[in-house]
């Protein structure tokens, strides 16, 4: 079966890959371009560990037909940090022990980023809603919600460490 060329932007860089017909974006990220940050959990849309942003919106990479990403921007957890400088969400996840086994973490980070990009000071309920499609079997969610609230507070609270970042 013929492969189809697909070009898209991944974390700000142009990528061109050949995809199989019907291949999902998660496969293309992990096997095609070697970005292993989005995980494979269920392949059914239920667990959220494959959450990435497509043109800024959270999507489940396992259910996204790769060809629909042609010409679009995909952001993954791999693009969050700026060299050695972690993204404020990553720092907050560390400080609040929001990652135990870490399998859900990249999906949680991207779901949280999607929220904070639209809503800089969310309520606790809004945070819970934003990660409601992401399952965590370790933390009991509270540390994750605390971390996201803290990242929002620090970002909105006059800290300017964000300003040097190209993509936030």
């Amino acid at each position, binding site marked *: *079966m013929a492969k189809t060329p697909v070009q898209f932007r991944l974390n700000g860089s142009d990528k061109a890959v050949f995809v199989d017909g019907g291949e999902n974006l998660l496969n293309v990220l992990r096997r095609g371009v070697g970005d292993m940050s989005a995980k494979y959990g269920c392949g059914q849309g239920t667990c959220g560990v494959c959450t990435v942003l497509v043109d800024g919106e959270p999507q489940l990479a396992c259910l996204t037909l790769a*060809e629909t990403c042609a010409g679009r921007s995909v952001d993954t957890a791999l693009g969050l940090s700026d060299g050695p400088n972690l993204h404020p969400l990553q720092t907050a996840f560390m400080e609040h022990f929001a990652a135990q086994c870490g399998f859900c973490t990249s999906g949680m980070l991207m779901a949280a980023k999607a929220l904070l990009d639209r809503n800089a000071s969310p309520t606790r309920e809004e945070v819970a809603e934003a990660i409601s499609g992401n399952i965590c079997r370790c933390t009991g969610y509270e540390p994750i919600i605390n971390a996201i609230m803290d990242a929002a507070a620090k970002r909105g609270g006059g800290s300017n460490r964000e300003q040097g970042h190209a993509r936030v």
Partner: protein
Amino acid sequence: MALTVKTFGSMSEAAAALASDRTARFISGGTLLMRAINEGDTSIGTLVRSTDTGYRQIRSDPSRVEIGAGARMVDILANRDLAFLHPAARIVGGPAVRAMATVGGNLFAGSPYGDFTTALLALDATVSIQAAYGGAQQMPLEQFLQSRDRSSGLVTAVTVSRPASPDAFRFRKVSRVKPKGVSVLSIAAHLPATGGRLSNARVAYGAMAPTPIRARAVERALEGRSLDAAGIAPALAAAAEGTTPATDALASAWYRREVLPVHLRRVLLGETG
């Protein structure tokens, strides 16, 4: 085995491509179809896509709203004119599912999915279909749902009338996990009243049959009645009539029937909780 993906600029070309290939399926948001492909559904050989911009468009005027079948739940939620549909769009999956799941795909979602379609059914929606060859046709949603498994052709849009007043349209999804959880059942009701008496109420259930259904017995029992405990008693007694819910991992058929009148009462009396 890799599939073939065919992309078309217009819905009529997509409809023709679909009709010419028995293994072809139309992909809209893909939340159900990609899941089937990931699970190894070998009956699917070709995916047909449309990049027709009209497929996603929402057009509204003071009395009616036409929603392109490709509009996603987030598109509904971003449209202030569609506030009456927000409660039904907001409860479809989590944020990522809502950024993918379309109105058109929801019409085909098997029970216990189809919450948004349940709301459309209570609003007396009409489905616009692009036939494989030739023209477009329109069909009441209720009729469409009865024949959807055999339907060829593509759904291009659904059209609904606005509710008589904001309070006249109510929607409730019952799930075990909040805020995101699959439906135990859902209920939508359009309850127009004159002088405190209901006339032409429309009540629809999700997850109480293989497709969303109208609750005809409830609608009849509400005719001319008022929305108070005494007025709705006959409707509650008839709540489960005509339902054939499934037993699944979320609830047994018995449980669904048992809790249905409780939630119907809350919808009709405007109670929360």
